[in-house]
Structure formats: C-alpha cells, structure tokens
C-alpha cells in the first residue's frame, strides 16, 4: 500500500463515522419525504378537479362555458344556491364554484365581457396548498379560448378585444370561514408565506445558534477540564444548569432581535410593492397575538436549550459537541420546511402529531394560526412547549448529579430495560420512593 493510500485510508476512516453519516442520511430522508409531499400535490393536480357551477345564463355562450367546465372537471353541484354549492364543495373537497351570470351571452354578443363569479375554496396557506386551486383556474382560460374560437368560427363578433378576452371574472376566496372578495388563493398564500416565513427562519436560526452555544459550552468545559472544578464548588447544580441556559437564551434572544430587525427591513421592502392589505380581510395581529407569539418563541427556545443541555451532557469534548448540534438542527428544519410549504391544518394527522411534538414548531405555526384566530392551537402549543421545557430541564438537573456527566455514558449496572432514558426515569422514581 502506497503512502498516499495509507494517508487517504486513515483520513476516510477518521471522517466517515456515524456522526458524519447520520446527518446526511437524515437530510436525504427529509428531501425524500418532501419529494413525496410534492408528488402528492402533483397527484392531486392530475386528479379531476371537483367544482360547482351555477348556470344563470340561458344563452349559447353560457352553455359553451358550462360544457368546458364539465369536460375539464367533475361538477359536483349545478343548482342555483351559492351556499349549497359551497357546502357541497366543502363536503367533497372541491376547489371552486363558478357562477355564470344571467347576461353572460348577451354581454359578449354586445361587445362586453361576459362575467363569471368565482369562489375559490382555499385549504391552506402554504406554498403547496394554493396549487390545486391555481390548477382549477386554468378552466377559466379554457372557457376564454373556446368562446373566442366560437366567436371567430361563427363570425359572431368583430370586436378584437372581446374576441381575445371575452370573459371577465370576479373572485372571492373562502378560507377558514372567511370570505375574501377580489383576491385569489395564490395571492393570499404568497403574502402569508412572505409574512409567516420570517418566524420559522428566526426560530430556526435562534434555536440552532443558542443550542450550539449550550452544547459547545458543555463540550468545552469537559475538554478544558473546567467542569470538574465547577462541580466541586459550592454551587447548586440547578444554578449551573439554569446559568448556562440563561446565558444561551439571552444570546439567542439578542440574535432573534437582530434577525427580526434585518427581516423586517427585508419584508418591508418586499411588502412595500404588494398591493394586498391582509388587514382589510381581517387577517391581522393585535397586541395579544404578538404577546402569544413572544411567549411561544420563549417556550420553544427554553425547550430547545433544555434539550441541548441534555445532549451536551453526553458530549465528551468540543468536537463531539459540534456533531451533537445536528439533531437539533434537523428538529428545527422539519417544522420550518413544513410550515413554509403547507399549512398545519392541511397535513395528515400523523404529520400533525409529529409537528406538534416538536416544540420548535409552535412559534412557526403561531403567526398564521393567530391571523385566523386559532387560539386553541397556539395556546395548546405554548402549554406543550412549557411542559417540554420543564421536563428537559428537570432531566438536565438530574443528570448533572449523576456520574454520566463526567463519564458520558450510562452505568451498565443502572441498565434494566436497555433504554437509558427509561432506566433513568425508573431510577428517579425509585429514589423518590
């Protein structure tokens, strides 16, 4: 074996460890599941759209429009009541209601655009959620094209602008019980995504940054052999744990403020060009909402730091501590990607449970949920995060009193079930007795 291959072999052996492989595998799994999610949306697109049509026009062009809808989608309602149509769409997971006005044919033939009123059934405000309704809107351009072709074939109009664009439509989006006139789901999703993207990004950055501070602090204390001195001084274990958490939380919150300032400038630039004012549709946050978002962020931060402290206890040195930040990074990335792409409400139950179980999800979900007054989700998220934080801190303080802090592993005599955490809980319960 040449010297080159000996050195290369040593390097590969050093670098290709489980701690370097596992994060890559997890990233691959996350991307694979995202691919599945995208695939799911594509499948939804390839499925026939379910729509409702209220036909008020008795003319030929109205009938053509109806037949275009009928050919391009499954009409689940074709009565005369808007409310019944909307209820049917709700029940059948339909995407849109098209109302062809009574003067549709007459207007076009008199060189005015024929009006179609559209109700979009918006399911979620994520980037992916608005895609199905966007696909249904292609039916409208088909109506335009078919009517234009008819007008030309039968020489029914000599007005070029009407031939090119024979229909107009007024749209209303129905989302979480709110009816918003004159705005499309794509626009709403786009504005909401811009606004609610800030929080997931901030939460992710803050959690990762302050989490790595805590884990690295533990790794460094062990590597520099300062921890032993600290532990033999008259300082309560809780003071050490909370002191470290408080330090990291303060640095994390300073980071959050800096990010928020930067992001607010970024988005004020972006939203400055937007003509949509969500507040006029009742989608606005008041002081209570912002307070709840703050509490949710704080609870998530403390939960994350508690979790990082537990992981830091197992870190033997600074290098090991660095790799231990990976799981926290992934835990923060999962809800960030999920909330960017889709809405919590539109996720399958299993995904909702997983997302709810990750404490970092809650401040990410909170902003959008509060815009639609979903206080139950936000308050239950805060309660869960606080309980999670308390449990992690309790475990951290407990571990600080155990040999594991210095040895980095669970004593074999303590193992009963094969699961260190369960063994630890059993030990705690036994001690309490």
């Amino acid at each position, binding site marked *: 074996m040449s010297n080159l291959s000996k050195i290369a072999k040593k390097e590969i052996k050093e670098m290709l460890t489980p701690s370097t492989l596992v994060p890559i595998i997890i990233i691959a799994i996350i991307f694979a599941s995202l691919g599945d999610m995208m695939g799911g949306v594509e499948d939804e697109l390839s499925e026939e759209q379910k729509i409702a049509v209220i036909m008020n026009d008795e003319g030929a062009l109205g009938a053509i429009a109806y037949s275009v809808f009928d050919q391009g989608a499954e009409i689940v309602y074709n009565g005369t009541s808007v409310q019944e149509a909307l209820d049917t769409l709700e029940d059948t997971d339909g995407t849109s209601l098209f109302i062809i006005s009574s003067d549709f044919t007459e207007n076009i033939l008199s060189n005015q655009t024929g009006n179609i009123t559209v109700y979009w059934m918006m399911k979620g405000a994520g980037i992916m959620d608005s895609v199905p309704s966007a696909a249904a809107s292609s039916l409208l351009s088909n109506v335009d094209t078919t009517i234009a072709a008819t007008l030309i074939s039968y020489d029914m109009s000599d007005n070029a602008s009407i031939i090119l664009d024979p229909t107009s439509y007024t749209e209303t989006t129905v989302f979480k019980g709110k009816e918003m006139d004159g705005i499309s789901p794509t626009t709403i999703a786009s504005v909401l995504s811009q606004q609610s993207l800030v929080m997931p990004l901030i939460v992710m950055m803050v959690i990762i940054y302050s989490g790595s501070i805590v884990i690295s602090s533990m790794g460094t204390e062990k590597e520099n*052999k*300062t921890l032993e001195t600290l*532990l033999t001084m*008259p300082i309560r274990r809780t003071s050490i744990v909370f002191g470290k958490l408080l330090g990291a939380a303060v640095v994390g919150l300073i980071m959050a403020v800096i990010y928020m300032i930067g992001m607010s400038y970024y988005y004020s630039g972006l939203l400055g060009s937007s003509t949509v004012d969500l507040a006029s549709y009742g989608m606005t946050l008041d002081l209570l909402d912002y307070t709840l978002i703050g509490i949710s962020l704080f609870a998530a931060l403390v939960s994350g730091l508690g979790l990082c402290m537990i992981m830091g206890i197992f870190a033997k040195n600074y290098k090991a501590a660095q790799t231990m930040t990976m799981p926290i990074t992934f835990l923060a990335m999962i809800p960030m990607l999920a909330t960017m792409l889709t809405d919590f409400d539109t996720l399958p139950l299993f995904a909702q449970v997983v997302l709810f179980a990750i404490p970092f999800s809650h401040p990410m979900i909170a902003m959008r949920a509060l815009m639609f007054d979903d206080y139950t989700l936000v308050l239950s998220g805060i309660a869960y995060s606080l309980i999670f934080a308390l449990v992690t801190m309790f475990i951290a303080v407990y571990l600080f009193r155990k040999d594991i802090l210095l*040895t980095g592993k669970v004593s074999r005599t303590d193992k009963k079930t094969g699961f260190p955490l369960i063994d630890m809980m059993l030990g705690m319960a036994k001690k309490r007795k």
Partner: protein
Amino acid sequence: MNAIEVKDLVKSYGSYQAVKGISFSVKEGEVYGLIGPNGAGKTTTLRVLSTLLEVTSGSIMVHGVDLREKPEDVRKIISYLPEDAGAYKHLKGREYLKFIAQFFAEGKEAEVLVARGLEIANLGERIDDKVETYSKGMARRLLVARALMIKPKLAILDELTSGLDVLNAQEIRKVVKSYAAQGTTMLLSSHNMLEVELLCDRIALIDDGKIVAEGTPEELKRKYSANNIEEVFVRAVKE
C-alpha cells in the same frame, strides 16, 4: 475528629469495580498520600471524595459531614484540584481568581481571597495575561492558587505537580506544605514517590482498588525493608 473517615468504600462503573471496599481516615491538618500503579483506583477515590462521582457503597464523612447525605455541605469545605485541570482560557489569570473567589465570599472578603491567590500563583505581571497564553507550569500554579486561596478545610490534590519541571514542582510543594502547616488537611495522589515522601505524613498504597499498605513513610520503609518509598511501592505491588 478526623478530617476524613472512609469506611468500606466501593465504586463501580457498571460491572467494573474500580474501588473495592477501602477504609482509611485522615486527621485534621494531616497530609495523606495515595499512591499506586495506573488504574489502581486513586483518582476514582479522590473524585468520589470530592463529590464528583456517586458512592456505590460504603460511607464517607468529611469533617463530620456525611458525603452521601449532604454533598453540597461537603463542597463548602473542600477544594479539589484534578490532575489535568484547566482554567477558563478566555479569562486573564486575575479574572479567573476573582471569578472563583466570588462563589466563596463577597466584597472585601473576596478581595482577601484573590490577594491570597495572587500571592500563591506568584505570576508577576503575567497574572494579567490571558490563561491561554500560560505555560503548563504557570497554569498549574494558577490552579493551585485557586484551590488553596479559599483556605479549604480539606484540599484534594490529584497529581499535584504532574508535568511540571523541578523548579515549578518544588515551589508548589512549598506552598502546599505551608498551607498544611496552617491547618488545611491535604489528601493527594501522586506517581512521584519523592514528592510523596517529602510531603506526606502518612501514605496508603492502593493496588487493584484495595489498600495494600498504610503508614508513615518511615513505617512503610521499615515494613518493606526499603530505602525509599519507590522501593516500598515496588515491593508492595509485587507481593
């Protein structure tokens, strides 16, 4: 009252028993040394006594305080210097001593502790340099100063002069002797037999987690018909 009273101390890591039921006692103001080969259980014993590791079985009393019952009370009267201890590298020497002192006293009292620490460390102008710039000898002197400046009732010193040159080692031994003379009980471990002979009033030889011999250096030399503690060590371990 004895400063340390250890009875049937057992310390296990899983199925491995590092300390197998040792008993010894140390009088107040005494310098007591633990010597033994690598892996004999010296450091484990010192770590248990300094409340870092849990006791598997047995009892330990430190100045009348039950270590298993009230470890936090024991921490108020002891000072532990690990073999490879470090100080916070981003701090300057003086800042490090101040940082430690504030956990033991406030205001003027803390200043007195720091002044004492500065005297023990004897680092001159370098005390205002960052710890990361210190040589091994300087860092060790700072750490010894940290351990002794609070005048603990019991100082637990693991490999006191490990890795130090003769001059640095001698200076540190002088400091330890002077503090022992002022009433601080010293429990130390060392591989340096000369150091043990020079410093310790009594010695315990540990081998394979058990105390195989105990006594003053003179008693041990007589018992093993040896000229020095190194010979005592070799004969005791081979027996």
